[in-house]
């Protein structure tokens, strides 16, 4: 019938010419263009509308394609965190730690327990930050601005914690092969304790604003629902899949970085609609806080990094004062480090689902092929299917609740 290789405008124009409604009205084309206040990120959706109802749609992505996989083939391992930062930029430490775990798997580096627990704390803080943005912006799209302004203050507190750890607020470039680049000062622990003391009450207030709010419930229940079979076929993972009732979480299925030491639940929804996605993310924030609490309480003694001088840049005092430090520094920067020829796939639980790193090495200091399995890219395919037959305003709310981050979509 319609040739799917044509651009959507042309294809829909042909459908409009052929189809006529009973009352004489026609379909129309709406361009939910790349720059739109409600699409958080730039992706275009051309929708075929029957009045206010969506008949069909086609998305165009790639408006922020920055060729990460091509750049990664030209950068040594320690420079790739600048790229992984900018994929899901709302929770960049998770991407960074995922990358370091991949490299450590290739090189066979064993990370000390203390550094693993510190990584868990940072990753869970990042997950909280990601869910703060997603849920508060979902509220903004339904008209509730207060939640956004109120909860963003605590995102600033998380930024302050990141700043104490690594110096940057958003694109953190955190961690090194084997652990962290420097030990965490007392200020970091104080700030984390203050955050853990203040945040639960604030999150309860945010939930009270919206979870049993009649207007919010009317706008989000049974909107953008997807059933579990279809979601699995479309490659959903993460909170979007857990809202459909499937409790698949990589932190439990394939624990990395000592997640098996912590006790936490996996919140699941029932119907996979927007309200369930909202509630699952709310509950996940609470589970993350539980994990951080356990990690701080059970933090073992040890070093903040593994003792791998051939991969971890030595401190400057050693470089300038000892022979070994100088040699290791030279070898690491010039790329004379031993790298096995192998391929590795490592998934981590990102803010949006299974973030996978497929790394093929060829013995040199740059990857031969690095592919990011980006959850946003994979589940965004389902969007047009999910909103067929819905009203336009419901489609906007569905899009918000999917938490599509343009950096991860296009990479």
């Amino acid at each position, binding site marked *: 019938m319609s040739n799917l290789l044509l651009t959507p405008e042309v294809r829909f124009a042909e459908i409009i010419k052929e189809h006529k409604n009973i009352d004489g009205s026609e379909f129309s084309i709406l361009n939910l263009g790349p720059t739109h206040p409600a699409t958080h990120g730039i992706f275009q959706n051309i929708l075929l509308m029957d009045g206010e109802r969506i008949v069909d749609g086609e998305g165009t992505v*790639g408006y922020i394609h920055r060729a990460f996989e091509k750049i990664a083939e030209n950068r040594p391992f320690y420079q790739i965190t600048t790229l992984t930062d900018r994929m899901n930029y709302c929770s960049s430490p998770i991407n960074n730690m995922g990358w370091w775990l991949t490299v450590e798997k290739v090189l066979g580096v064993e990370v000390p327990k203390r550094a693993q627990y510190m990584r868990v704390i940072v990753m869970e803080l990042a997950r909280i930050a990601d869910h703060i943005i997603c849920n508060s912006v979902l509220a903004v799209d339904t008209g509730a601005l207060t939640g956004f302004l109120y909860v963003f203050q605590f995102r600033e507190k998380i930024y302050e914690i990141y700043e104490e750890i690594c110096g940057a607020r958003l694109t953190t470039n955190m961690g090194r092969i084997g652990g962290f680049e420097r030990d965490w000062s007392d200020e970091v622990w104080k700030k984390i304790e203050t955050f853990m003391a203040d945040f639960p009450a604030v999150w309860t207030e945010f939930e009270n604003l919206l979870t049993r709010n009649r207007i919010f419930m009317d706008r989000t229940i049974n909107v953008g629902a997807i059933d579990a079979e279809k979601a699995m076929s479309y*490659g959903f993972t993460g909170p979007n899949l857990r809202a459909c009732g499937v409790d698949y979480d990589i932190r439990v299925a394939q624990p990395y970085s000592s997640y098996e030491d912590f006790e936490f639940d996996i919140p699941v929804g029932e119907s996979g609609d927007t309200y369930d996605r909202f509630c699952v993310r709310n509950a996940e924030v609470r589970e993350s806080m539980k994990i951080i609490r356990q990690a701080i309480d059970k933090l073992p003694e040890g070093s903040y990094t593994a003792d791998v001088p051939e991969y971890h840049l030595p401190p400057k005092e050693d470089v300038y004062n000892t022979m070994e430090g100088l040699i290791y520094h030279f070898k690491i920067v010039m790329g004379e480090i031993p790298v096995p020829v192998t391929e590795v796939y490592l*998934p981590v639980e990102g803010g949006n689902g299974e973030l*996978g790193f497929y790394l093929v090495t060829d013995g040199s200091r740059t990857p031969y092929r690095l*592919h990011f399995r980006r959850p946003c*890219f*994979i589940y965004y395919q389902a969007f047009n299917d999910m909103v067929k037959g819905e009203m336009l305003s419901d489609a906007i709310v569905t899009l918000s609740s999917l938490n599509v981050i343009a950096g991860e979509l296009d990479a």
Partner: protein
Amino acid sequence: MALSSEEIQQKIAAKFPDSTSEFMQIHDILTLTVDAGSIVEIIRFLKEDPTLRFNFLTDICGVHFPDNSDDKKFSVVYHMHNWLDNVRIRVKVFLTDTPVIDSMTSLFMSANWMERETYDFYGIDFKGHPQLKRILNMDSMVSFPMRKEFPMEDGGRTDKDDRFFGRTTDNI
């Protein structure tokens, strides 16, 4: 009882002795190489067999090996995951210089965009794909940017003087 790699290897090799080869355990994922002609049957077998039950397609990606022999220039790598027994598997297919392979969209709906991305980057033709056109790059682009011979930087840029970066027009 968990599904072990030997079991998986035995089942697959028994059912498809001619089209599968090179079973390797690389780190913790069993990897096998498959002929391009029988890829759909093998993936369907992995998905629907009651013992193997690989119900989730994790990833599809392509790799370019310009230094390999002519029949192994391109490779398409499928990662699958069995959620019930928590086992992963990696299926690799090697293709020639004009790569053509059957599409997986009839089995998994997530393969749609993943194959479009692989086509966009490498030019691998997926037969039977409902909408094989570019997804991330501009529609008007003619070359396939992830191939090793394609340069990373834009050739027409005017603001960077390559002489200061150790490059001239001769040694791009």
